[in-house]
C-alpha cells in the first residue's frame, strides 16, 4: 500500500515536471537596476503568460566574475540553459564545445535575417551560428555640458581643450580614459588608424605595432604624463563615473548604460553625449553587446529556444531598450521609442563605423597581452614601440 503511494507520487511528480519546465537564464544585467527590474517584472512574466508551463529562472552575476562562473559551470557539467554573454566570449565557448549550434532550429533563419549583420557576426564560429545577438552598444563621449560648451570632435581639439582646462594641482582633468583596458584603448588605436591584427586574423606583427598603433598609445601616455587626462588611465584616482560626479573629470568614454547609472547618482550633473573624438582614420569606436546562447548540455532546449525567440521579438527588444539596451532587430529602429530617444541617436551613428574586437577563441589572452604592454609603458619599464613589438610577437604565437 505504502509502496504504491510512493510510486504514485513519484509518477505525479514526473508528470508535473514534464509539463512545468523551468529554464535557467544567466545574465549580467546590473543587480537592482532598471535593467534587471524590467527583465524580472515585465519581460519574463509576459513570456510565462504566453507560454504556460514554462518558468524562467533568471540569475544575475557581476560582469567581472561571469566568465569564470561560466567556465566553472561548464567544467562541472552543471550549466544554465541560456546565457546572455559578452559577444567576445562566444567564439571561445563555441570552440570548447559548450554551445548549441542554432542553425537548424525552427524559425532561426527569420531571426537571423532580422538582426543587424555586425552583431550577428559575433555568433558565427566554424561554419555555424552559436547564438543570436540580444543587445548592442558602443562607446561614445559623455561630457559635462556645464563646463564644456562645445565638445571636441577630434584628437587635436581634445588636446587643445585639455591644455586649457586640465589642472592636476586643482584636481581637474578634461578627459578620463577609465582604465588601461583594451575595451577603452582600442577606440583610440583604431581612430588613429591602428589595428590588432590583419583582417584574416593571422598576424599581429605589423598591425598591433604599426606606426599608427604606436602613435595612438604614445599620445595617451603623453597626455597622461602631462596631466591632460585623468590618472584613471593608470588605474588610479577616482573612478570615471565618480570623477564626473565630483566635477574632477569633465568628459569620459562609455556605453549607453552609463547615462542612467551616473545621472541616478549625480542628479545635478548636466551630462551630454557626443561622438568619440576622431583621429586621422575617423571616429572609430568599439562594438560591444551581448549575445544569447544556449548551452549544448541544456536539457530544456525546446523551451529555451522559445525564450530566445521571445527575447528577439520587437516587444521584448523595445521593452529592454528603455533601460539602455540598444535593440538588435532592424525593425526596432523605426519604433518611435528609439527615434525619439534623447541619446540613442548618437550611439546608433557611432555604431555605423564601430569595429568589433578580434573574434578569436584566444581573445581573452590577446586582451591581457595588450593591457600588459600598455601598463609596462605606464610603469616606465618600456617604450611604447618596444612594448607593442613584444605584444605583437606574443599575439602571433596565439594565432598560430
Amino acid at each position: 500500500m505504502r509502496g504504491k503511494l510512493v510510486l504514485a507520487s513519484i509518477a505525479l511528480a514526473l508528470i508535473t515536471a514534464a509539463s512545468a519546465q523551468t529554464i535557467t537564464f544567466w545574465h549580467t544585467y546590473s543587480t537592482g537596476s532598471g535593467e534587471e527590474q524590467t527583465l524580472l517584472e515585465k519581460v519574463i512574466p509576459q513570456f510565462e503568460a504566453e507560454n504556460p508551463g514554462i518558468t524562467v529562472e533568471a540569475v544575475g552575476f557581476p560582469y567581472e566574475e561571469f566568465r569564470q562562473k561560466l567556465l566553472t559551470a561548464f567544467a562541472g557539467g552543471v550549466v544554465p540553459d541560456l546565457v546572455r554573454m559578452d559577444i567576445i566570449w562566444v567564439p571561445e565557448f563555441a570552440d570548447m564545445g559548450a554551445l548549441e549550434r542554432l542553425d537548424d532550429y525552427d524559425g532561426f533563419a527569420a531571426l537571423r535575417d532580422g538582426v543587424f549583420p555586425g552583431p550577428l557576426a559575433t555568433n558565427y564560429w566554424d561554419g555555424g551560428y552559436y547564438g543570436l545577438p540580444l543587445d548592442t552598444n558602443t562607446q561614445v563621449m559623455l561630457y559635462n555640458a556645464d563646463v564644456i560648451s562645445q565638445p571636441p570632435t577630434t584628437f587635436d581639439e581634445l588636446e587643445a581643450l585639455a591644455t586649457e582646462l586640465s589642472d592636476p594641482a586643482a584636481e581637474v582633468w578634461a578627459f578620463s580614459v577609465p582604465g588601461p583596458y583594451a575595451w577603452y584603448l582600442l577606440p583610440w588605436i583604431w581612430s588613429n588608424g591602428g589595428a590588432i591584427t590583419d583582417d584574416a586574423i593571422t598576424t599581429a606583427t605589423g598591425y598591433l605595432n604599426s606606426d599608427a598603433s604606436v602613435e595612438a598609445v604614445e599620445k595617451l601616455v603623453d597626455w597622461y604624463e602631462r596631466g591632460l587626462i585623468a590618472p584613471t588611465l593608470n588605474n588610479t584616482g577616482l573612478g570615471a563615473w565618480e570623477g564626473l560626479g565630483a566635477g574632477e573629470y569633465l568628459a569620459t568614454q562609455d556605453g549607453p548604460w552609463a547615462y542612467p547609472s551616473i545621472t541616478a547618482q549625480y542628479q545635478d550633473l548636466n551630462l551630454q553625449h557626443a561622438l568619440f573624438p576622431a583621429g586621422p582614420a575617423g571616429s572609430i569606436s568599439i562594438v560591444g553587446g551581448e549575445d544569447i546562447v544556449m548551452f549544448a548540455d541544456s536539457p530544456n532546449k525546446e523551451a529555451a529556444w522559445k525564450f530566445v525567440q521571445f527575447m528577439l521579438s520587437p516587444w521584448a527588444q523595445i521593452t529592454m531598450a528603455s533601460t539602455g539596451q540598444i535593440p538588435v532587430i532592424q525593425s526596432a529602429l523605426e519604433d518611435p521609442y528609439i527615434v525619439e530617444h534623447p541619446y540613442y541617436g548618437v550611439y546608433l551613428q557611432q555604431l555605423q563605423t564601430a569595429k568589433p574586437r578580434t573574434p578569436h577563441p584566444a581573445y581573452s589572452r590577446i586582451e591581457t597581452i595588450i593591457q600588459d604592454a600598455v601598463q609596462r609603458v605606464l610603469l616606465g619599464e618600456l617604450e611604447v614601440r618596444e612594448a607593442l613589438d613584444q605584444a605583437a610577437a606574443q599575439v602571433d604565437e596565439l594565432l598560430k
Partner: protein
Amino acid sequence: MARSSLAPTAGLAPRRPWWRVSAWKRGEYLAAAVFIAPGLIWFLGFMLYPLVYSFWMSLHDWKIRGPSEFVGLANYVRVFGDSVNLIALRNTVVYGVLSVPTQMFLGLMIALGLERLSRGKVLLRLIYYLPVISSWVVVSLMFMFLFNSEGLFNHVFGDVLGLVDPNTAWLNRASTAIPVIALLGVWKGLGWSMLIYLAALQGIPAELTEAARVDGANRAQVTRYVTVPLLKPTTLFIAVMLTIGAFQSFIQFYIITGGGPVHQTEVFLSYMYDQAFNFLDFGYASAIAWLLAALILAISLVQFRLIKSTYEY
C-alpha cells in the same frame, strides 16, 4: 596494523580472521564506524580526493572537458622557467619579512602590556582581536580605498601634512603596494599573536618571575631575561603559523592589486588562480600549487628543527 592490534594474543584464544568477531565486538566496530564515518567521508571526499586529483591534473595539459594529454613533469618544468613565479617568490618573501616579525613583536608587546593591566583588559583584548575575525574581503576593500591616489591616506599625509606626494599611486608598483598589503596583514593578524602570547603568559609559573624579583631584577629585566626566553616555544609556534599564512596569502593581493600591474605584485596563489580560472590552465595551476606546498613544507620543517633545538623548559 588494525589486524594485529585487534586480534587476541596468540595462545589465549583460537586465532580468527579479523572479520569473524563476536557479535559484541561487531557491535563495537559498528559503533566506532558510525562515529568515524562523517569525518572520514569528509576527509576522503573533500581533502584526500581533491589532493590526489590535483596532482593527477598537474601531470596533464588539462582540458576542462574531453580528453587531457599526459605531459609528465612538463608543467613543473614550466614553473621554474616562468619569471612570474620568481616575482611571486620575491613578493611573498618581502611580504613575510615585513609582516611576520612585526606582527609577532607588536603582539608580544600588547600581550605583555595587557597582562599588567588590572582594568579594561577584556575590552582591549576584544578591540585588538576584532580585525582577526573581520572579513578579509571587507578589510582589503577598505585598504584599497585608503591607499587609492585619491584616498584618505594621501589626503591626510599628502594634502594636509605634506609628508608624501598627494598623488602617489601606492598600489601601482610593487615597492609601495607590498608594504601597504603587509601593513594590512599586520593590522589584521596582530590580535591573533597577541592572543596566543596571552595564553602562553598564563602558563609561566609565578615563582620564576617572583624569584627573579627577589634577586633584585627590575620589571624590564624580568621581561627580558625570564619571560621572553620562556615564551620561546610559543614564539616559534607563532612564527611557523604566520609564515605558512604569509605563503598562502591570496585574498588581500587578489582584491587590492589583482597581481597587477603586469604581474608586479603577484603572489603564488593569485598567479595560480589566474592560470586556473582565467586561462583554464588547470594543469599548470596545479603544478604551482604542489610546488608551493613543497616549499611551505620545507620551510616548516626547518622551523620545527629550530623549535626542537631550543626548547627551554
